Each structure stands twice: as structure tokens, then as C-alpha cells.
């Protein structure tokens, strides 16, 4: 590393979802690589336009299966092997497990997915929040483009004008923005 730029990311702020989506499409088409986007709520189009891939649905399914198996093992151990109590003549390996299994399937899937997500995104307690723009949790949509060191002034200018032409209401620079 020879030198680091202080402001190494360009961001554009949009106040309309449709404009934001159209801008993303046009910039991808023009060959400008979008580094990250921030929206107040999930938008599936972002996923399609940026061509993102995720294995989270599959992991969620596996976690749910693990959750149901662990819970069944626990219930089987406690109420069949270790401390069987016969209530009203019902079998100890009982249908009443299903209610707990049902809940723990969901719980296992959610909790383990949550921690996986934390690990992937390197989130954790005590991590400082790097907010690109203060309105991303309010009603604004932000596109972030990385400004590399070898980028010439013309290229930077091109990115700025592309953002401006596509309806960005505010354009600025910001350091330390993570990739998706």
C-alpha cells in the first residue's frame, strides 16, 4: 500500500424507489460497478440487478432440520430414557412432542440463521456503526460506488454525472463502506 485516499467511496442519494431502481439498472449497463446499496426496506429488484447469490435459504432449511432433530433428541432423552412418567396411560414417546417440535423448528431456523448472518456481515456487539447517510433508515435510497486509486479524474467525473443524471438529490464521498 503506497497511499490511501481519505474519501474512497462515492455515494448518491435518491428519494424515490423507481428512480433508484432505474439508476441502478442504467449504471450497471454503463459498466459502473456498484459497491453497495442502502435502502430502508428490502427490495428484491436490487438482488436481481446486482446479480447477487445467497445460500441463506438452504442454510435456514438445514438449521430448521437440525433444530427439530436436537429438540426431539432432548425430549426423547428427558421423557423416555431418563425420567419416564406415565400420564393417563399415554405412551412416553408421545404425540405431544409435535407442538414443541413445531415451535423449535422455527426457533432453530431463525436463531441460527441470525448468527450466521452476523458472522457473514461481521456484525457483533461493540462494532461501531458506519452510516453512509443519516437518512438510510428513514426514506432515502443510497448507491455507493468504490473510488479506486487508479481511477482518473474523468472516470470519477463520469460516475458523478451518471448519478446526477439519473436523479440523485445528493452526491458525496465517504470512507470505509463495506462491500455487499
Amino acid at each position, binding site marked *: 500500500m503506497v497511499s490511501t485516499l481519505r474519501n474512497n467511496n462515492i455515494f448518491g442519494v435518491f428519494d424515490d424507489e423507481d428512480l433508484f431502481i432505474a439508476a441502478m439498472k442504467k449504471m450497471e449497463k454503463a459498466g459502473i460497478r456498484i459497491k453497495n446499496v442502502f435502502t430502508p426496506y428490502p427490495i*428484491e429488484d436490487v438482488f436481481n440487478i446486482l446479480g447477487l447469490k445467497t445460500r441463506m*435459504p438452504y442454510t435456514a*432449511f438445514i438449521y430448521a432440520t437440525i433444530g427439530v432433530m436436537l429438540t426431539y433428541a432432548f425430549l426423547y432423552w428427558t421423557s423416555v430414557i431418563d425420567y419416564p412418567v406415565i400420564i*393417563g*396411560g399415554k405412551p412416553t414417546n408421545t*404425540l*405431544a412432542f*409435535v*407442538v414443541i417440535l413445531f415451535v423449535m423448528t422455527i426457533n432453530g431456523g431463525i436463531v441460527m440463521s441470525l448468527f450466521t448472518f452476523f458472522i457473514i456481515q461481521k456484525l457483533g456487539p461493540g462494532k461501531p456503526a458506519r452510516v453512509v447517510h443519516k437518512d438510510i433508515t428513514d426514506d432515502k435510497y443510497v448507491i455507493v460506488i468504490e473510488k479506486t486509486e487508479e481511477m482518473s479524474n474523468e472516470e470519477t467525473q463520469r460516475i458523478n454525472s451518471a448519478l446526477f443524471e439519473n436523479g440523485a438529490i445528493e452526491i458525496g464521498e465517504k470512507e470505509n463502506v463495506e462491500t455487499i
Partner: protein
Amino acid sequence: MDKAYTVSPGLRILSICLVVIGIAAFVAGFMFDPQRAWANYLIDSYYFILLSIGASFFLAIQYITQSGWSSMFNRVPEAMGSYITYAGVLMLIFVIFGSHSVYHWTHHDAVEADVLLQHKSPYLNMPFFIVRFVIIFCAWIFFMILLRRLSVKQDIVGGLTYFHKSEFYSKVFIFVLALTFSLGTFDWIMSIDAHWFSTLFVFKNFLSAFLHGSAVVALIIILLHQQGYYPKLNKAHLHDFSKYMFILGIMWAYMWFAQYLLIWYSNMPEETVYYQTRISHEWSVLFYGNVVLNWLFPFLFLMLNKIAKNKYALIFTAAVLMVGMWIDLYVQIMPGSTMSEAAPVGLNSIGFVEIGAFLGFLGIFIFAVSRTLSKVNLIPEKHPYLEESLMHKSH
């Protein structure tokens, strides 16, 4: 765009052939075992009543939530709802001639020997039964025709007047449906086992109607799409239909299991006897197969995103659900109405009468739905949300 649906001669011949098979099956059935034939008659007429009710509930929900995505397809649930008139006539034949063969409580000597049936007789008696039947079907036919008329008028006049009216009467309709459907199901299905009762029974059957009704709505739309109608049908619509099947399948299984678990838990002989007959011997295959077909299969199959948007996968799922629904009703109706006779029935007794009877009713259903579909324009052109439906995309 303004393509009206025309019934192809092949489809008309098919429906007539199916009806002929059905008539043959019933003739054979009445000659050898009238009780079994009447029980089959009840299964199949109730089957298509459920589809009709489910589809019209689907339509009402679309109006009430002001859904845009489905507005292009409104004609299909309307056409399925209009089958209820045919269903009324078919069911009336059963109520008048077939009740005695299926319902234990219609036998005077049985009632006299049975304290519980005597206790229930102020409600469960033939005249009041027929009165309830007439009221229920009048209400249903009235609302189906009303919703259909408002929709057709809107296509001529345009604007929002008839749209708001449709929404208002849909709201009235679902309240009326809640009451009439409960009473109807109590009367026609639950009173077969007159000693037994379950408060979740109606809700489970209603979810069955909604689940299978929406599945058949999707099936008909995809089949029409295959023939060149609804050119604007896209992956987003298909995904929405598969969401209906997926989520309602879970709801259905939830209710099925809730009813089973409560009875299993309390373990009272007068309640468990219902499940005892159904869970033992050859019935057990159908009993568990019911859950596999109606919940487990769609649940695992439609979970995959690519499959949930594939029209062939949806056709297959809807077909499986239709089979599953028939088995569901077979398990509900058959043991109570025919087990008292010498020979117990179950999986091995599904024969020509059962299949032929179903095909016969299917023929009438196809005939009625295709006839109503061909009457007016297939796409409601002046629906206020039509644009949204045509441009629908995933988000």
C-alpha cells in the same frame, strides 16, 4: 387482449364423456350397493361445493384486500363460483333421496333406541334439515350471482361504482359464508357420525375449501394460458399462486393436527372412536396419505424458489392436491356412512364406483365452468387494477 374464451369441441365432448362414465358408475353402484353409491354421491357433490366456495372466497378476498395482481384472472373464480347452482340441484337430489341411506339419525327406530339422538332431534330432523339446506343454498347462489353481475356490469360501465359495490358485498359475503358454511358442513358431513362432534371440524374443512379452491383456480388459469389465453401470465403471478398453496397447506395441516391432537390428548371414548376406525387397518394408509398429499408434498416441493415459479410444477401440485382432497373427504365420509354394514371399506374398496362417480361430477364441473367462462370477456377490461395485474412483477 380482447380474446373471448370459446369452449373447444374436444373439451365439450370430454365433459359429456365424463358425465356418461359417472352415470354408468352410479347405475352400477345403485344396483349393487346403494348405500355406498349415495356415500360417493355425497363425497363428490361436497368436493365440488368446496371448490366452488373456495374459489368464491378467493375472489371475495381479492376484492376486500383490493388486490391488484389477481384482477386479470377474476373471471375464473367467478366461473367456479357459478357452479354452485349446479351443485345446489345435485345436492338437492341427495338430500331428498339419499339422506336415509347415509345418515344414521334419519332412521326412526335408531332414534327411538338412542337417548343422544333423541336429545339432538330438535335440530337433527328431516324437515328442519331441508329448510337449512334451502336457506344455505339460496344465500350462496344469491351472492355468487350478485358478485358475478356486479363484475360483468363493471366491464360495461367502467368507473369505480361497481368496484366499490363488489367490495362491499364481498365483505357481507364472507360473513354470510362463515355462518352458512359452518351449518352446512355440520349438517352434511359431521352428522354422518351423529354421536361425534368437533368444533374445529368446520374450520378445517373451510381451509380445505380455500386451499383446494385456490389450487384449482391456479390450475384452470395455467391450462388456459397453455391454450393461448392470458398471454400476460408471468412468473410473478405463478409465484403468488404457489404462495397461496404453500401457506394454506400449512394452515390446513395445522388445523388437521390441532383437531387430532385435542382428541388424542383428552382421550374421551366418544371422541376417540372417530379416529379409532380411521387410524386402524386399511384406513391408516389413506389417513396418513391424506396429510402427505395435502401438506407434506406441497410444503417440501414448493419450498424451492425455482419450482414455485414453474407452471408445470404448479399443474402437478394442483393435481396432487385434488387427489389429496378427494382422499380427505373419503376418509371423513366413508367410514361413518358405510361401516355399519357387514363389509368394512377402505383402500381396497376404491373401485369403479368411486372413480367413475368422481369423473362424472368432474364432467359436470368442467361443463359448468367452461360454459360460464365463455359467456363474457375473459379479461375484465375496465377493472381499476387491471394495469397493475398486467404489469405485475416480483417485489
